[in-house]
């Protein structure tokens, strides 16, 4: 199977996810399962310190990612993490970039780390479980991927109820 097939849902989400922060959604990207509530109001991404430097690096990462430069994007996120190491959004984005680079184990670990920091952010956790699910599929851990799907589904329902 094509690795990109796993990535599609996550990639699509990346755009919505970035909505609160930066980013111009480009039309040529596939937008798959909508983030709960995304249609009405894109989830706000709160950066820990609301630090403009973190935001600038985030934008730099976004631009690089849009241009397919995964390494450059990851570097920018790592620089941002040096400034705001407790920001779960950055960890999540790094997870996604690792997934895109085919590093499934790292993607899962980073998304789990983001989860541990994101108790108050169910939207982000939903997203992290999607990444974990895709990572597990990528390394052909199908039962693990199903567990992840259960988690993300639970979060999705809870988020929908809040709407």
């Amino acid at each position, binding site marked *: 199977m094509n690795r990109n097939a796993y990535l599609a849902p996550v990639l699509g989400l990346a755009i919505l996810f970035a909505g609160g922060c930066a980013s111009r959604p480009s039309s040529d990207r596939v937008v798959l399962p909508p983030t709960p509530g995304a249609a009405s109001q894109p989830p706000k991404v709160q950066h*820990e*310190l609301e*630090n*403009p*430097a973190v*935001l*600038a*690096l985030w934008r730099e990462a976004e631009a690089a990612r849009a241009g397919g430069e995964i*390494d*450059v994007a*990851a*570097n*920018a996120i*790592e*620089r941002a*993490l*040096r*400034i705001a*190491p*407790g920001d779960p959004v950055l960890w999540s984005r*790094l997870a996604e970039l690792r997934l895109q680079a085919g590093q499934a*184990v*790292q993607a*899962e*670990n*980073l998304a*789990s*780390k983001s*989860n*541990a*920091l994101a*108790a108050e952010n169910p939207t982000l*956790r939903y997203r992290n479980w999607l990444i974990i699910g895709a990572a597990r599929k990528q390394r052909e851990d199908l039962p693990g991927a199903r567990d992840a799907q259960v988690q993300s589904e639970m979060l999705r329902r809870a988020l929908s109820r809040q709407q």
Partner: protein
Amino acid sequence: MLALALVVGLSWLLYLDLSVRSRFDGALWQVPAVVYAQPLEVHDGLDYDADEFEAYLQQIGFDRSENAPRRAGQYRRAGARIDLINREFVYWDGVEPARALSLRFRGGRVASIQAADGAAVAIARIEPVRIGSLFANAYDDRLLLNLQQIPPDLLAALLVMEDRDFQRHHGVQPSAILRAMLANLRAGRTVQGGSTLTQQLVKNLLLSPERSLWRKFNEALMALMLEAHYSKAQILEAYCNEVFLGQSGRRSINGFATGSRFYFNRPLRELDLAEQALLVGLVKGPSYYEPRRHPQRALARRNLVLDELAGAGQIDAQQLAALKAQPLGVVELSQVRLTAYPAYLDLVRRQLDRDYPRAQLEGEGLRVFTHLDLAWQRRMEAAIDAELPDLEARAGMTAGALESAAVLADRETGQVLAISGGRRHRLYGYNRALDARRPIGSLVKPFVYLTALLQPQRYTLATRLSDAPLRLEQAGTEPWEPQNFDRISHGEVDFGEALVQSYNLATARLGLDLGVEQVIKTLRGLGVQRELPSHAAVLLGALELSPLEVAQAYQGLAGGGFAVNLQAVRAVTDAAGAPLSRYPLELGSGLDPQAVYLLGTLLQRVAETGTAKALRERLPARSLAGKTGTSNDGRDSWFAGFDPRYLAVVWVGRDNNEPTRLSGARGALPIWARLMEASTAKGRLLREPQGLDWAWVEPGSGLASAEHCAEAARLPFIAGSVPQQASECGARGPNGFGELIRGWLR
């Protein structure tokens, strides 16, 4: 027969020629790997005041200008405002262009950054400080100069003393050799060397130090070859960078530039003629004329060089008298800043050795980017310098008896920001942070308790532990009979309190219930790679780790259970800036973050009410967590802990492993506190992950209680592990009169 001799002779010549050229090309053209500290990422809110920032600019060689800066590398300071033109710099992930920046500072922080057009700049990278080079010899990071950078007077003195005919001969001087032989014969021992500079260079670069005619013969041949292949200038330059001038521990001092740093702690270009003459004088015998050990000999030798210079007409009599009247001017070894960060470079070297063949590090002009944070390194050294003398005085020890080591890392990313390998920060030597493996004492206890908390069905924060005396019969060895620090058994104790007060008996019993192997497995899960023993005494810290290894284990705790390999190197690029390898952030799969959180609450209590409560006075109103550790009789005093941002481990002890009578709280903790005093980290110390339930518990029984009950404590539990059995009060509900009143008053 003749033909055979000719063939052998020719082959030998060819062989010599080849080795001369390959070795000399290597020496001439090799560009050692350059190592950089972290670049300075400036952004609003960065903890740098204008003075600190200016000092940083000077460290990277910016010039202060009175007017607005006009070229890259210039800055202007006007009170709390600094204007500069940042140099272009090639990083591992791209180029930071040259651009004008204007920074304003307020309250010890960067208040704003503007570009030339007045636009706000969110973040800018200022180039990193170059902290050293990596050579073949791990303890050689000599400074290289080209011929134009070497003072002409020094070159003149060198030629006068060592080889007056250097510009004219072809590598050897038969007349000089003859003269030397006669002098030596007359004296009955070697008093004169007839070697040209070229021969000396050959000897240094290519040959073993043995003295034999055969070697002399080869040396002469190779000197001729060297002269045939290379210019006088190339040979002289190589000589000046190669010449052996002294020894510092394991490190040899080669080259005049390094020699200048080593003896005068100043760059070569700043030396006066008398000082230059001393360096030239040392060439003849760096250990015989060692100016710190043998100042009289060194002075006589220096004055001889000056006399010879006068004799050769380089200086007049008046200058000669003035120069000879000068003292040697050699600085104390402790002041020498040969390598600013030897302990850190040591770690860099080791990490690179895993991934690169030596030859590549030596000869290909690699650029190595590290995580060293100079501000933190300075604070670490200052903390050690400030506290060790106090500790010695308090423990009634002679000055200099104690040693220490420390590691500071970013708590979440595992980037190693600073390392101290001992109190002599500037010298290569025994790197205690990496190589001193010492018993960690109670620093191991958190891993015992974490192992328990990873089994929520068996252990929770409400579990009661027995602190009863313990005697463990072990086949083949003495029975193991641990004692509490206060030699008192505390009976049945609260799970958390046993760790917070560092009770040995309760911990040993808990560890034995869990199995030593399980505790070791936890340590492994947090990235400790060393093979660990599995006997019971490990549970109380009979386990030897280096400070760096301790930092690795505690990073896992500080990082919420997600261990990262502690790293010094960020990236390596080739000379042109193309990335060769990156060392990206890599996370371990992690231990259950809920259990790690529960443990974190206990480590926080250690710093509030437990064995590290001294921190409350030293660093009031700070969120801190950590653990003290002490080995037998205070041979090792440890503190490992973290704040919302940084993780630090400090060890204090003696190299001869004698007792210090300093506990972890009295020895290592004061240094840790002084170091962490500088942290302005904000945010939460512990982040509560999903999947915890908070419940009221009756202390003293561990039974479920309720808010209205006297003394009830609210504790976090991993979901599904809340105690079910209720205490008497907890079962009753808030109906007693007293409880009702208390309920109203709350």
